[in-house]
């Protein structure tokens, strides 16, 4: 099995390992704080840090309070929620499908959520966040279910590229169906085209906050199943011998990925590559143990998304480049680098 990682340490040494691994957590934590500050301070109008702090308390220049206190706080909170959700979903999908290039975007989970939203938008003209989330979750669940069914079958077993192709094709089917709906309804197209690029400003913070619950549940699920997933990296048979029930683990992962991706997609649109890059980079630094990678991804993923969002504000120079576009522009070349960097045959 070409992509299988070295067996993770299961017993006592893991505690020691986690102790040794404190440094990455510290670095990721500092990076997260820095990213949040950048996200609050930088934009069409740069604001000094002391002013940022004041405006968060509601003190100071009214305009600054308006920009920082509401708009930028809003998108920063959205970025934190979506970053965590997408990063964890990516880790889970890569672990379960044993596919180092799995990503909720590429495997069609985001397309499923998007399809759900389009169906919702066309069925009910004024669909609030409360309604959108249910449609997005249903779509994400459908897509994740199909993809996981595919990934467990012999058909794609051991071939990341076949699974990726299946995901791309499945996304295409869903996208085609979405297009057909969107094209027959100009109002739906108008809201959909903004939502589709992936933007942290798509929804006000009042809509975002109630959805945190979904992400929290998804996160807890992810952290709870990490040890079992670790053992499943050894193969189903070994995992069963170690007391893991692969079927149950798959179901829980499916649930977690659905909650995470559905929420992120409902909030910010389909954003790809965060779920691909974060686990990839983390594996290089700390190795394959999911009990370390998952909590670390919790800190690191929002960093990537927030920095991408800040980049979009800066390079757009007024005409802001949405964060989904920026992550695609960063992630595409990196995917090519990952693919070219591997020796031929490794991915087949």
């Amino acid at each position, binding site marked *: 099995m070409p992509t299988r990682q070295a067996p993770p340490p299961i017993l006592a040494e893991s505690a020691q390992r986690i102790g040794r691994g404190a440094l990455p957590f510290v670095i990721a934590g500092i990076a997260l704080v820095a990213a949040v500050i950048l996200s609050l301070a930088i934009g069409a109008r740069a604001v000094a840090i002391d002013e940022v702090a004041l405006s968060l308390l509601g003190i100071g220049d009214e305009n600054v309070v308006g920009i920082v206190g509401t708009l930028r706080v809003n998108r920063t909170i959205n970025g934190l929620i979506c970053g965590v959700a997408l990063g964890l979903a990516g880790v889970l999908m890569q672990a379960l499908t044993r596919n180092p*290039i799995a990503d909720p*975007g*590429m495997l069609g989970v985001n397309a499923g959520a998007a399809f759900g939203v389009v169906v919702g938008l066309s069925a009910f003209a004024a669909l609030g966040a409360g309604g959108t989330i249910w449609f997005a979750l249903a779509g994400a669940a459908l897509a994740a279910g199909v993809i996981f069914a595919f990934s467990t*079958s*012999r*058909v*794609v*077993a051991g*071939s990341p*590229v*076949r699974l*990726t*192709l*299946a995901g*791309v*094709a*499945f*996304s*295409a*089917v869903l*996208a*085609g*169906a979405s*297009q*057909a709906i*969107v*094209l*027959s309804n*100009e109002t739906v*197209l*108008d809201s959909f*085209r*903004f939502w*589709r*690029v992936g933007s942290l400003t798509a929804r006000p913070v009042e809509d975002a906050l109630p959805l945190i619950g979904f992400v929290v549940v998804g996160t807890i699920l992810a952290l709870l199943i990490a040890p079992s997933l670790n053992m499943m990296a050894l193969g189903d048979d070994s995992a069963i011998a170690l007391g893991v029930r692969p079927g149950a683990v798959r179901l829980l992962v499916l649930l977690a990925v659905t909650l995470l991706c559905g929420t992120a997609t409902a909030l910010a649109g389909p954003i*790809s*590559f965060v779920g691909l890059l974060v686990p990839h980079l983390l594996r290089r630094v700390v190795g394959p143990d999911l009990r370390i990678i998952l909590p670390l991804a919790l800190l690191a993923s929002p960093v990537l998304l927030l920095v991408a969002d800040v980049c979009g504000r800066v390079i757009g120079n007024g*005409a802001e*480049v*949405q964060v*989904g*576009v920026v992550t*695609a*522009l960063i*992630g*595409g*070349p990196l*995917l*090519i680098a990952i*693919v*070219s960097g591997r020796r*031929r*045959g490794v*991915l*087949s």
Partner: protein
Amino acid sequence: MTTTERPIVAPRHVLGDEQRVLRTRRGWSLRYHRRTAIVVGVLALALALLLVAALMLGDYVVSPAALIDTLRGQAPDRRTEFFVLGRRLPRALVAMTVGACLAVAGAIFQGLTRNPLASPDVVGVSSGAAVGAVLVMLVLEGSVDQAAIGAAVGAIVVAAVIVLLTWRSGLHGVQLILTGIALSVIAMAIVDYVLSQVFVASATTAQTWLVGSLQGRSWSDLIPALIALALITPLLIWKSADARVMALGDGIAIGLGVRTTRARWLLLVAATLLVAVAVATAGPISFVALVAPHIARSLTKTPSFAASALVGAMLLLVSDLIALYAFPAPLPAGAVTITAGGAFFLWLLWREGRTRA
């Protein structure tokens, strides 16, 4: 290596029982495959029947007698003449030509990469065309005709980038496909960004174009595609034997005296031009390039550009008819091909995987 490579079939298929040779007294000879010849004949007949159906069907149904009269130049009334000759015939011919261009390009890609899952749309050439067209249409504010030029440039640029990035690994295998997927994600991100920056009316126009549509295609759209197909066909006839031998692997091909690098370049350029013209004419129609060669191969049991072209022409013509008449409101043909083609692709993956497992 990828297990998607076709197994090396005994040379019977290169020169075997099924081969027949026609010779003239002056020394010209034409080698053909009997089963392929039969299949091509049947396909051509079916395509002709479909064309007749496309000319007759619609809100204004034309009777067979009226159709024959119209085609003979004696239309019963101006309305029939307008619908048949002015609207339906050019549209159907554009569909057939574009379908054929895409199918042949797909057959070339699949043969060259020895990967039945590779096709111009999977490896991102069509997305490149989409970016080119959208940039011309919405940023440079060009006409739809000028967008066609942008599409051609975009397709060629992406193809060039793919070749540069994957030439070293021999243009086949996983790297090509994944690189293509990455490129098309980048391309579509740019498209989405541009779409989000314009007025909704322009976005709708561009979006319809992006799905791939034959709406309003007329005689003037037919000519460039037809010219491209006509120019490239002789090259394909000339190189098809080489292509068939190269499908057995470079070692065998070189041993049999094929100059593989040159043949590969020629075929690659031909395929890119065909896609560029097709996308410029009808937008990035998905999956025809992928599906048509498969259907053709399962009918003829051997790779054939002619059979692929005919299947491609039929697929797009049928898709357009379905898109026009099967739904409450007419859809672009690309919406049908992407949904049905994606499903077919999944089924194909499934079947290929089972035979492999």
